[in-house]
């Protein structure tokens, strides 16, 4: 493997991402919305509510809770957090439980945006042909494209997690008065599940991007990847599934396994001739 060539292609793709506002802004906007704006709004909203209705969270069922939080199940909140005090319980529920599936959207979004740009975008801009005329092998090309997307997706996911640790403890401080975050489940999510999800998204997008003809098509197909996360969010909020440490470890294993299988398939499909025929 010519690692100098791999790193050259990787650096080129990274530079394109970092200097292109059309790619860079969505990459930053999604993590900021999910990991900064949303927790602040939800916890502040919860604080406002409990200030006006000072009752334990287990009594906060029925219409009052339904109206305030759009159907969040209070029993799930208490089961998940083990905290029954109103304000503290709500903050812990939101920050540890509710945001968890949304956090998983971050590596997915970052990986799909970059990966779509990596193949379909490069073809659309006409730069893929020149690259195919170089001595990089198909394996080197796939490795470079994978790393150019996986590294930023993982860095943004783990960096976003670090920022979220600060945000979560800061917004919960007035009610809890202590540093409570992160818990083990979140550490597993950040360092095990998120990189795996990025790998899975990349593998899927590599297959998709090498087969569709435009960046727009790649984005449309890639957007379907968030559906399992949305299902997880619904299951979590309705109490059907509780994302604990064991489930997170298992989920990560499944995601990594799927990612490796799809990536292997992508490696077989990604042939210079196939790419050249679609130029």
């Amino acid at each position, binding site marked *: 493997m*010519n690692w*100098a*060539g791999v*790193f*050259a*292609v990787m*650096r*080129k793709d990274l*530079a*394109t991402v970092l*200097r*292109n506002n059309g790619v860079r802004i969505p990459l930053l906007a999604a993590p900021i919305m999910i990991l900064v704006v949303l927790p602040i709004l939800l916890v502040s909203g919860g604080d406002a509510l409990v200030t006006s209705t000072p009752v334990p969270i287990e009594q906060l069922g029925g219409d009052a809770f339904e109206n305030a939080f759009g159907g969040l199940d209070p029993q799930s909140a208490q089961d998940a957090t083990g905290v029954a005090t109103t304000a503290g319980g709500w903050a812990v529920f939101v920050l540890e439980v509710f945001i968890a599936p949304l956090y998983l959207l971050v590596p997915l979004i970052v990986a799909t945006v970059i990966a779509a740009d990596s193949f379909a975008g490069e073809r659309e*801009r*006409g*730069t893929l*042909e*020149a690259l*195919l*005329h*170089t*001595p*990089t*092998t198909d394996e080197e090309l796939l490795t470079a494209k994978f790393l150019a997307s996986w590294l930023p997706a993982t860095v943004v996911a783990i960096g976003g997690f670090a920022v979220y640790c600060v945000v979560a403890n800061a917004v919960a401080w007035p009610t809890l008065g202590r540093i409570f975050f992160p818990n083990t489940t979140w550490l597993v999510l950040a360092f095990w599940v998120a990189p795996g999800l990025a790998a899975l998204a990349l593998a899927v997008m590599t297959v998709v991007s090498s087969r569709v003809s435009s960046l727009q098509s790649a984005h449309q197909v890639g957007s379907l990847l968030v559906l399992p996360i949305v299902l997880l969010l619904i299951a979590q909020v309705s109490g059907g599934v509780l994302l604990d440490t064991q489930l997170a470890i298992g989920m990560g294993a499944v995601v990594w396994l799927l990612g490796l299988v799809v990536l292997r398939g992508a490696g077989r499909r990604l042939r*210079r*001739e196939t790419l*050249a*025929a679609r130029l």
Partner: protein
Amino acid sequence: MNPLEPAIVVDNVTRRFGAITAVDGVSFSVQPGEIFGLLGHNGAGKTTLIRLINGLFRPDSGQIHTLGHDPTLAGDRVRRRTGVLTEYPALDQYLTPAENLGVYAAIHGLDRAFSRAQTVRLLTRFGLNPDAKEPARSLSAGLKQRVALARALVHDPELLLLDEPTSNLDPLAARGVRDLVLELSREHGRTVLLSTHNLAEAQELCDRVAIMWRGRLLAVGSVAELAPQGGTSAVHVQVDAPELALEVAERHAALTDPQLLSDGRTVEVRLDRADVAALVADLVGAGVAVEAVIPQHPSLEDIYVAAHSLLGTDQKVTA
């Protein structure tokens, strides 16, 4: 590679894409140091042939050898020694011209110092500032073309595959590219495969040409070799009665109507060489005084037109 071995051998190569036959039984070879022109309309199969020669496609039948290697088996070895200017010379838009060259230098394994020296030399040669910080997207089409050509040359390739290298350039820049191609071939012994629509450019630069039409090869050879078999060429006939001469000449002209040149007494007729005597006899018979008959050297355009005129007769012009 043996220095006497052809740089490119294309032997009865066919490549299909579904129902479309992009390259159909094509055979030719290119010698080391030669400038070889691939001529043809859009869709003639020129770009597919370049991709076959550089190992991006496998032929459905036939064989190719590029710089002594089969590009379908050793594509990376071939591509290490070839430099390609693609038909649409897209650059990485967010990288500067120097960065664009630097990426390809790194892919080709050049060390940083040599890469930088090559970048400075080539960009300067093409009239660009190697220290410019503007991204490639801010360049004009002509400047992008120059950067793309410099990028194709950054690793000092033995074989250049150039797809329409002057198509976006102004006349002066195009002149510079033609001079460079000649220099690379004549002074540095590089082999150049030049795909172009520009017949004047091909005539000026190419040692030999291949004329393609819908994937088929219509003619291969040098202009001089192809000319006698080209069928038609121009003849200038100086007469005392040009209007009458035009009427007579129309009966003999092939492909295009005869024309009266600006001197007012010379009629240019494109016809088979064998018909020149009959034309003169008819002119004299019609009462036209023929003062001079001057055969014109056939141009590549004459050959190109003649090669296409043979379509349907199933003939191939070969040197």
